């Protein structure tokens, strides 16, 4: 592996010598790379463009083989040869457990019983919560819902590898991260029903969770707009010298947006401690990845931006945990972005507004949901470790099911936010035009109460 030219890792260093004091305050010294060497992926290049080991000899340069173009030194070649559009072999995928939960690797971050059991419990909770909430939508009690079926390992294992200080910028299929951090089932239900206990005060669709207490930034419906946010937040963390990073999640579809490109580019240039976590689940609503991009997935794009990257088996909780754990260390200690592509399968529909059997075979969906279930796989591992049993399993599932149903029933009964909340938080303080619009609305409701919903309190 090599680069085509010498890239000065910090072209900012000359500027910093002018401002040494501010430099020390704002830049952290990179410590030695604590992670394993990046031999986890291989790549092949054509001979003629392979950079030789004689990179050093270029510096002594009278060599007519190199020239110092802006951007660094490049060696010349007389061969008219194009780089292939794809590598000979796809980038290998990091995996710790096989399909039956047997460890096949020694190279992973060990977790203890307490962590493993909590991870498993949260994966089950996420699965049950998704199933019941989805059914509630089908029954007409919820207007909308999005499940993370098939991605429980991604949700929980990545959250488990982070610290509470790390800032999370989600897309919309990462409720498990919030669950791990302590968001209760009741709080999830409150947001979905948009009642007065909702953090968002009833202003967003279901599953658009947000909690500053848990460092989980409110979900926005726009695709991949959270990527630049995560870079900006990482930049803020870097300026404050905090021992934390940001992580942002997005799907395979989100990588086609302009924001993806620019965010990765920025993060690399700005050396921001951000983890870019791509959930490559094969589908963007009905668009399969073959119609989304022609590159070898997302992992190969990292290098294009100068971002360290890895491909992991997204249905392997231990692999996801290890990858995020190491990525976090790298991001913070070396102040650099890291790209993780987790391969997985979207075993549910895109949302309750979608019926994916219309564009993919039902057998395929079933196979991934059952035979490749990340929850089952992880359970096999912890059972083998002696940390779990069938009895514990049924107890857990019954208990969670009851709790979820209870949460839904409670949330349904709670009243909605008042009319006042239509007008607050647009600005820090309502300006006069909004106050007048509120007065106007209230008067209209008073005059025509039969035309307005009865469960909408006006005070």
């Amino acid at each position, binding site marked *: 592996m090599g680069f085509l030219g010498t890239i000065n890792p910090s072209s*900012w260093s000359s500027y910093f010598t002018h401002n040494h004091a501010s430099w020390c305050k704002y830049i952290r010294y990179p410590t030695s790379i604590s992670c394993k060497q990046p031999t986890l992926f291989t790549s092949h290049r054509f001979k003629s463009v392979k950079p030789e080991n004689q990179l050093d000899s270029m510096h002594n340069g009278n060599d007519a083989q190199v020239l110092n173009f802006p951007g660094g030194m490049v060696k010349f070649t007389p061969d008219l040869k194009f780089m292939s559009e794809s590598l000979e072999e796809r980038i290998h995928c990091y995996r710790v457990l096989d399909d039956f939960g047997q460890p096949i690797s020694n190279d992973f971050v060990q977790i203890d019983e307490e962590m493993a059991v909590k991870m498993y419990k949260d994966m089950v909770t996420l699965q049950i919560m998704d199933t019941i909430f989805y059914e509630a939508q089908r029954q007409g009690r919820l207007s909308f819902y999005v499940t993370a079926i098939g991605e429980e390992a991604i949700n929980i294992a990545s959250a488990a590898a982070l610290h509470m200080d790390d800032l999370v910028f989600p897309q919309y299929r990462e409720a498990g991260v919030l669950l791990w951090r302590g968001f209760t089932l009741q709080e999830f239900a409150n947001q979905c029903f948009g009642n007065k206990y909702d953090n968002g005060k009833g202003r*967003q669709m279901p599953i658009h969770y947000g909690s*500053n207490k848990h460092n989980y930034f*409110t979900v926005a419906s726009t695709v991949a707009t959270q990527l*630049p946010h*995560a870079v*900006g937040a990482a*930049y803020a963390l870097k*300026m404050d010298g905090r021992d934390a990073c940001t992580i942002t999640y997005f799907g395979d579809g989100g990588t086609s947006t302009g924001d993806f490109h*620019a965010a990765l580019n920025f993060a690399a240039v700005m050396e921001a401690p951000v983890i870019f976590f791509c959930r490559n689940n094969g589908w963007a609503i009905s668009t399969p990845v073959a119609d989304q991009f022609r590159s070898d997935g997302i992992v190969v794009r990292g290098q294009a931006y100068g971002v360290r990257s890895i491909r992991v088996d997204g249905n392997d909780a231990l692999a996801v945990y290890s990858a995020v754990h190491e990525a976090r260390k790298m991001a913070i200690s070396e102040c650099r972005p890291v790209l993780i592509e987790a391969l997985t399968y979207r075993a549910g529909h895109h949302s309750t507004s979608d019926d994916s059997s219309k564009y993919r075979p039902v057998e395929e969906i079933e196979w991934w949901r059952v035979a490749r279930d990340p929850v089952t796989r992880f359970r096999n591992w912890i059972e083998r470790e002696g940390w779990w049993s069938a009895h514990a399993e049924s107890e857990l599932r019954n208990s969670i099911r009851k709790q979820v149903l209870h949460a839904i029933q409670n949330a349904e009964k709670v009243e909605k936010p008042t009319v006042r909340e239509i007008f607050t938080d647009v600005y820090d303080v309502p300006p006069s035009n909004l106050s007048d619009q509120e007065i106007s609305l209230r008067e209209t409701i008073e005059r025509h109460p039969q035309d307005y919903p009865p469960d909408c309190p006006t005070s």
Partner: protein
Amino acid sequence: MAAAVTQGIGATAALSSANSNKFQFTTRRSLSERKGSSFVIRSDGNPRVDLNQHSNRTRQLVTNAVSTKPDSASASTVSKPGHELLLFEALREGLEEEMDRDPHVCVIGEDVGHYGGSYKVTKGLADKYGDLRVLDTPIAENSFTGMAIGAAMTGLRPVVEGMNMGFLLLAFNQISNNCGMLHYTSGGQFKIPVVIRGPGGVGRQLGAEHSQRLESYFQSIPGIQMVACSTAYNAKGLMKAAIRSENPVILFEHVLLYNLKERIPDEEYVLNLEEAEMVRPGEHVTILTYSRMRYHVMQAAKTLVNKGYDPEVIDIRSLKPFDLYTIGNSVKKTHRVIIVEECMRTGGIGASLTASINENFHDYLDAPIVCLSSQDVPTPYAASLEEWTVVQPAQIVAAVEQLCQ
């Protein structure tokens, strides 16, 4: 030949008399709800060099920072002579003072660092504060605006510079869907105190793409505030106010006004974001304008005074929300309104302002509101053609004469 479009808008008949009473503005509620939204801080330090040491601070509430005489450069609230500088330097001074005062303030934009900004508003700041606080970005407006939003939600106070306001069209998604929205949709959990600023408006033969008036496109976005500066004095004051505001603020500067020279006070001052500026009190007609058109209006005012008219000129400054208090008081006095703007006829600030005044003050109008705007065309390059798309003083004079018959 009148080249810009004028249009009288008939009084709206739809409003019942009951509704019109609701919109009498006797108090400024939004002002009173905020503490110390505009004040003058006395400083013993030399404000041009070392703004770090402010020892004795006394706060006074100044409700109106205005310039009362048409020809005087600025209103000095104290007898100190002040110092002279150009408008872009005033912007920089305001920015620098805020960066000194609060270490969370940072600047993000293209070529703002060592290049000093394409209009030199950030000149010298990178040397003083370092590359992280004055951040040069790659060319992706949607992305660095998004970055600023993320940084703001995490505690920083970024000032985003669009090299030209027109480039911020690329950031429209982030500005509309995230900047304006996330405070609301998160239930108030995350605030976004960003300032988005840059030069806009019709310049000298910059071509259509570099002559955009973004205030018309942005004015509908809930959750943002918009202000336009026009003098060195209000440029500095608005810059400081925008940075201190907890809401996202878009500060519109004008390419042709950067070299205006003015004498501004030495001591620190911050203006109110929601206030209009009384440029010239008068009795016959209210002329509402902002940014560069203020100077065309004042030029027309000179001619009008010579012809015996007494126009009242108000620089509305606050484009969102409108300062209907100041505007309303003026309408009640003169009963005639002309709006002079650089926006296009359709959907511009003038269109909204016309609707707003009609809705709130139509009882006080003796004649339909006249709105002078640019035509609904992309700005042509040729100098003569470009001149004809911008409202000229002669047209303003003609419009006043016609209105005051």
